[in-house]
């Protein structure tokens, strides 16, 4: 059983990392058209060092993604608690309303935001991007945290309350620790949704203030060079480092319930 499980994991990780490996490899390949055979070079990394625009865009990307992850996880978790722990009228409708942000192609949502933000004076820029990204990430957070809540036993909280704990106290001391893995997972996904979100960012970026995905998207017409791979590789490396630090501090996906 254990070995079957590990074999499955190895295969899945191989599948997930195949294109990532290609991405990293091509950052070190000389051809600007990603043509083989592989000719190793550090050319694209040194090019990148002089590309202020791309570096600034990467910084903006990470900033927007961090804010999105924090805000969306907070708001989404509150909503998920209400949706899965409280009974009230109109619950199904509220659940249903989580679908449009996921279902309507981002291109349309992005255009709609552009027009609406223009009409209302919200305008474009990092603030508009954050506004849009958080909204797009909330449904993911609600679904992820909701799934986590569904597998948590509500009676523990009830027990705490019957022992005199206030609802908030019961939540903080019982539910929250058990929910932590879901929260972290939701935040990681919100971060990913934002980081990968090129369409909405593209419409909401102010002239001169762009994010990495926007840079990539706009350079499609002319052609993006392996500099993009180089910067992606660096970001990936930074993520891994962040993860290692993070993993040292918390126990993500670790034991959730004492067995």
């Amino acid at each position: 059983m254990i070995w079957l499980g590990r074999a499955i994991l190895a295969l899945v990780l191989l599948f997930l990392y195949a294109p990532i490996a290609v991405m990293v490899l091509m950052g070190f390949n000389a051809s600007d058209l990603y043509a083989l055979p592989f000719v190793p070079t550090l050319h694209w990394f040194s090019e990148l060092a002089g590309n202020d625009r791309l570096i600034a865009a990467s910084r903006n990307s990470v900033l927007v993604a961090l804010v999105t992850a924090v805000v969306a996880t907070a708001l989404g978790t509150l909503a998920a608690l209400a949706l899965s722990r409280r009974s009230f009228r109109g619950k199904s409708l509220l659940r249903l309303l989580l679908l449009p942000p996921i279902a309507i192609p981002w291109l349309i949502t992005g255009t709609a935001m552009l027009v609406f933000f223009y009409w209302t004076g919200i305008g474009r820029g990092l603030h508009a991007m954050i506004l849009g990204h958080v909204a797009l990430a909330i449904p993911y957070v609600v679904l992820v945290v909701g799934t986590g809540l569904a597998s948590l036993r509500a009676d523990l909280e009830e027990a705490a309350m019957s022992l005199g704990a206030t609802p908030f106290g019961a939540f903080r001391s019982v539910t929250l620790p058990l929910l932590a893995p879901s929260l972290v997972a939701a935040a990681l996904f919100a971060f990913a949704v934002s980081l990968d979100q090129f369409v909405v960012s593209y419409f909401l970026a102010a002239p001169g203030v762009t994010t990495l995905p926007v840079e990539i998207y706009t350079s499609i017409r002319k052609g993006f060079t392996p500099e993009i791979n180089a910067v992606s590789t660096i970001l990936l490396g930074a993520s891994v480092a962040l993860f290692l630090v993070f993993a040292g501090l918390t126990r993500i996906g670790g034991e959730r319930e004492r067995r």
Partner: protein
Amino acid sequence: MSAPSTPEGRRARPSIASPEGRRARPAIATAALLLPAYAWLLVAVFLPLGAMLFFSFLKTNPFGSKAPLVFTGAHYLAFVTRPYLVDVAITSLRLGFWTTGICAAIGLPTALAIARATRGRVRQTVFLLAILPFWTNGLVRIFSWTMLLRQGGILDDLVHLVLPGVGSVGLLYSFPAIVVGLVHAYLPYMILTCYLAVAGIDDALIDAARSLGARLPTVFATVILPLALPGLVSGSILIFVPVIGSFMEPRILGGRIGVTMGTVIEDQFTQAYNWPLGSALSFTMLGIVLAIFALFSSVLRGRLAP
């Protein structure tokens, strides 16, 4: 959408029986929990999409059209007036079902493997490794897939290294290529939601079933699957819904084959400049997706009901 609530309802039901008096003004508390998220969604998504819904009933683009504002429902008849769209929609649905199905078939065993074959640090690492690819740009990943999948590409080279003489396994510009790209893009959602659902399964439950003589497939069907259901359902929503509207994977990996509702809608915005038609198509698609989920959830509920 009510589907995820079913298993939760089963578990959370005891809480409803709790003394109401302990909850201070439950309605206000509920509203306070919901308000921030939904207010945010209202400003950033629902109102803008409301404007789009309004546009979808206009004859021509609200910006820059020459005719005065004319209302029409004609764009919602697009499937009648443009019969070729039926084929396109079927392609999109096929992509949705294939991608969701494969993600479920891979995601659930993976989640089980993480939950049962790993512990502590290893589990953390595997879990994070599964999400990490998501932190790279989607477009870059798709272009990497073109390199892997094309005839004479990296995959071809590797296969020929092991098995010289076999034909090309190049998939690029085909339906399976699009599915590969989409599965890759969405698999982590399924792994994650399934993991959250099955991580809490008690070992004792499985041991008990096995000690009663149940074989593995029986254990899977009677113990694991029902418990994993909320994860499978949320995962399917997170995958099926956006796949139907995806346009980058079909365009880049599909070549001539890559014509989907997503690309048709994209064209209405980027080429044809017909926002009304583009948004009408999106809302039609949203309707189809909701209908599929309604059907699915009623079937699911029928089977779960005792």
